[in-house]
């Protein structure tokens, strides 16, 4: 073991291809820069000073309470991004994380409110419920794809709409919501038992979600499963070429179903940081669109945990600081959505350009190196 790892260790340094690193950074950086330019133009055209806007965001963003808020939001975005990325890595576009997390959160909140167990049982029960429901909901799209060849994109989009109706149907008082609402007029599930509270870390800037740690663990697990297991290899192979994967012995249909369910189960966790730390119930005010943000974050982060983490932080920062814009000056908060939107569009285009360029560049490099080798060999031949 010791002898065999040694060459591998030495190889690792050479293996870091700085050009490749530079190329992969170029795309997202370029996308962010372009989006800043575009939103500046939009602001300038509407007669406002873009620099002041960015200044407001920057100033607020450096305050410690904003930083904690950013981290908390980023935690949720990260989980959402990981859920989406799991499917993306095998070319499976699970657009349905939105519906999966909302149904998961609803059921989790209901179960959490119905039972009162000690924390070490209550919390896992709630989390498992959310994952199970999310996975089951996603499996519908998986089965449709495997059995009937229905595109998972269409199926999951439709399932999002259906999930909204199902949530509305179940939140009727007397079903998942108590007949008499406790404190407010809004309809919501019963508050969960106190034992379901997830721990938080007290900081200067406020309470930091303990889920940050869960997110980190998820990220590491994601990386390990994909890169260090047979299952992960099969998944990536399927993503790169379904035909080659099938010929290599991957049961593609089972793979589609499995990763759809795993993606859905991860999506079930999206609502958990909020549910277990702040809201404690599921109601009409439960945050929407977290699933869609996950798609953007996964795209920007290139489906890798580190990339998704950075993308989540960026998105969370924009969301948190945007609130300050109308308060501290005459700026529309929506400018942040313009930025987020342009980032996604730019990044998709930029990645494809960079991918093609990189592939071509490597072919040429290999050609050049082989030509050099051949020339050296020819020289030797002549000399001999």
């Amino acid at each position, binding site marked *: 073991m010791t002898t065999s790892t040694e060459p591998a260790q030495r190889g690792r340094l050479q293996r870091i291809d700085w050009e490749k690193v530079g190329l992969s950074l170029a795309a997202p950086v370029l996308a962010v820069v372009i989006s800043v330019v575009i939103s500046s133009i939009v602001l300038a055209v509407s007669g406002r000073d873009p620099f002041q806007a960015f200044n407001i965001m920057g100033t607020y963003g450096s305050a410690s309470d904003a930083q904690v808020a950013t981290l908390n939001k980023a935690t949720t975005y990260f989980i959402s991004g990981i859920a989406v990325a799991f499917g993306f890595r095998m070319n499976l576009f699970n657009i349905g994380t939105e519906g999966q997390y909302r149904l998961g959160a609803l059921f989790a909140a209901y179960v959490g409110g119905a039972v009162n167990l000690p924390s070490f049982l209550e919390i896992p029960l709630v989390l498992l419920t959310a994952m199970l429901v999310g996975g089951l909901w996603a499996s519908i799209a998986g089965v449709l794809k495997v059995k009937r060849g229905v595109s998972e994109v269409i199926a999951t989009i439709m399932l999002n709409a259906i999930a909204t109706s199902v949530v509305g149907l179940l939140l009727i008082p007397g079903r998942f919501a108590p007949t008499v609402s406790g404190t407010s007029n809004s309809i919501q599930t019963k508050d969960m038992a106190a034992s379901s509270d997830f721990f938080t870390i007290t900081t200067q800037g406020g309470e930091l979600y303990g889920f940050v740690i869960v997110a980190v663990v998820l990220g590491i697990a994601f990386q390990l499963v994909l890169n260090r297991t047979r299952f992960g290899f099969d998944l990536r192979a399927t993503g790169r070429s379904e035909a080659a994967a099938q*010929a290599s012995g991957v049961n593609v249909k089972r793979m589609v179903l499995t990763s759809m369910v795993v993606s859905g189960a991860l999506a079930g966790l999206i609502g958990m940081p909020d549910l277990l730390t702040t809201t404690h119930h599921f109601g009409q005010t439960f945050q929407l669109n977290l699933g869609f943000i996950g798609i953007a974050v996964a795209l920007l982060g290139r489906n890798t945990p580190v990339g998704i983490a950075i993308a989540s932080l960026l998105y969370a920062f924009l969301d948190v600081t945007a609130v300050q814009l109308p308060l501290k000056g005459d700026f529309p908060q929506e400018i942040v959505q313009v930025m987020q939107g342009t980032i996604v569009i730019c990044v998709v285009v930029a990645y494809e350009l960079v991918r093609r360029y990189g592939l071509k560049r490597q072919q040429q490099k290999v050609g050049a190196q*082989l030509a050099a080798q051949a020339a050296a060999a020819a020289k030797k031949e002549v000399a001999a």
Partner: protein
Amino acid sequence: MTPRPSPQRNEAPAEHQEIAITASTPSPSKGGDPGAGTAAAAVELRGITKRFPGVVANHDINLTVRPGTVHALMGENGAGKSTLMKILYGMQRPDEGTIAINGEQVEFSSPGDAIARGIGMVHQHFMLADNLTVLENVVLGGEKLHGIGGRARAKIMEISDQYGLNVRPDALVEDLGVAERQRVEILKVLYRGARILILDEPTAVLVPQEVDALFGNLRELKAEGVTVIFISHKLHEVLSVADAISVIRRGTTVGDADPQQVTARQLAEMMVGSELPSPESRESTVTSTEMLRVEALRIAKPDAEGIERVVLDDISLTIRKGEVLGIAGVEGNGQAELVEAIMGMLPLTAGTVTLDGTDLTGALTRSRREAGIGYIPEDRHRHGLLLEAPLWENRILGHVTEEPNSKGFRLDPAAARKDTLRIVQEYDVRTPGIEVTAASLSGGNQQKLIVGREMSHRPKLLIAAHPTRGVDVGAQAQIWEQIRTAQREGLAVLLISADLDELIGLSDAIRVIYRGRLVADADPATVTAEDLGTAMTGAASGHLESDETALAEAAAIADEQFGRSDAPGGGATGTDEPSDAPADTAADDAQAGE
């Protein structure tokens, strides 16, 4: 299966008969037959150099093509033939050098310029719209020439008759066979006024009879004064049709040769740049132990219109340890389905598959691979590689559950990398490292990696579908050698190939597949490529046996060029005395091109 003796041919192998080969120094007017006179060359390329960032694709290329001749351009894959032709056709501009057409110096900035100068190109992959008629395809993009109606039709018929192309203007292209489509492509180019035709590997898709017909067309074209540049790496075809040969290696012209004097072996050596491995005598390695048994296999699947079609019917075959069973057939007659059925990628309608006594009929692809089936797929880009993944990940592909790639459920990248290095070395994969993507290797090196990967797991049965397609001569010989070595150790091989020489040379037995059925069988020792070709078109069935004179002739040609076709098998002759067959046969064949 009778063991067959191999010819012990130890005739002086390539004691370089320099007579026929002239080094290509910048001196013009080499190659071509002497009778062509001193008229201005149809095409004259001088000192062509083309650099791509980091690579020199062409370096100081000199080529003189005389008018009204068939000039063959030979070279291994990746030698720079395509780049050169793209330059001549105006698709790329040379960095240095000059192009002269009919004695006039020209500069092309687009294919349009080349077409205006009377140059036309027939690509390897046909560019025809299936749902249009021949007439519509021909006039498409050339509407201004002769309109799209009666005048165009008359012109097409005129060209067709003039060159014996036998084209039906109102037939739908989708109803045409490969050979006929090719003639449409040629007609399309002539219709646009081409007097210089570039044909890029035109015979790759044809059966022997169709090749002969194509060569007949080329001779007609030549007789009418059209100049043909013929790109190929099939030696005997070049020898039989070309008036002059130029060989390209590593991006530069290494020499011109006179087809009347040069031997196939010398040509092959010019292309590869080193002496080819000589075929060694080979004992039959076929044993009596059954390895693969396929019984009453039947596959029916719905086609695009949803109608059930039987793609394979009543297929029964056995392959024994150490035996190579060759499947001959025109592409699309069920070969691909047969492979996929044995690999477990297509569900069977009926029948059984048994490997080494184990019933695999219901097994998944992965368990079949684990049971010992190695697979060299027909389309390596689609089925054999992850193009955008590094080489070491490609080494894992298909064997992720086996040593050294994984331990239990964990992947073992370190061991996989180490083993990839071994494969790269043992199988001579030319690559700067194992971290580069598979897409950056040339076709031959990709194939060597696949062969290395499959052989590394000591398969019991190897399914080799077109194992040397698109692979250069050097790699071809290596791959054949590797298959033979494994065969000696008891490997059973199912060989599917469109290259009949390869089939005859490598196989111990041959079956012919036609419309999803095995219609004929043959002993490679007693059959010629021509007779196999006949059976492939459905015109013959049962047991094939060619008459002796034809066999002797074929053997002579094979021996003449044994660097290539003979290498896999060590001879296709049984009782005949191959050394008695006069070597002139090949030369006669070559002269037939006059």
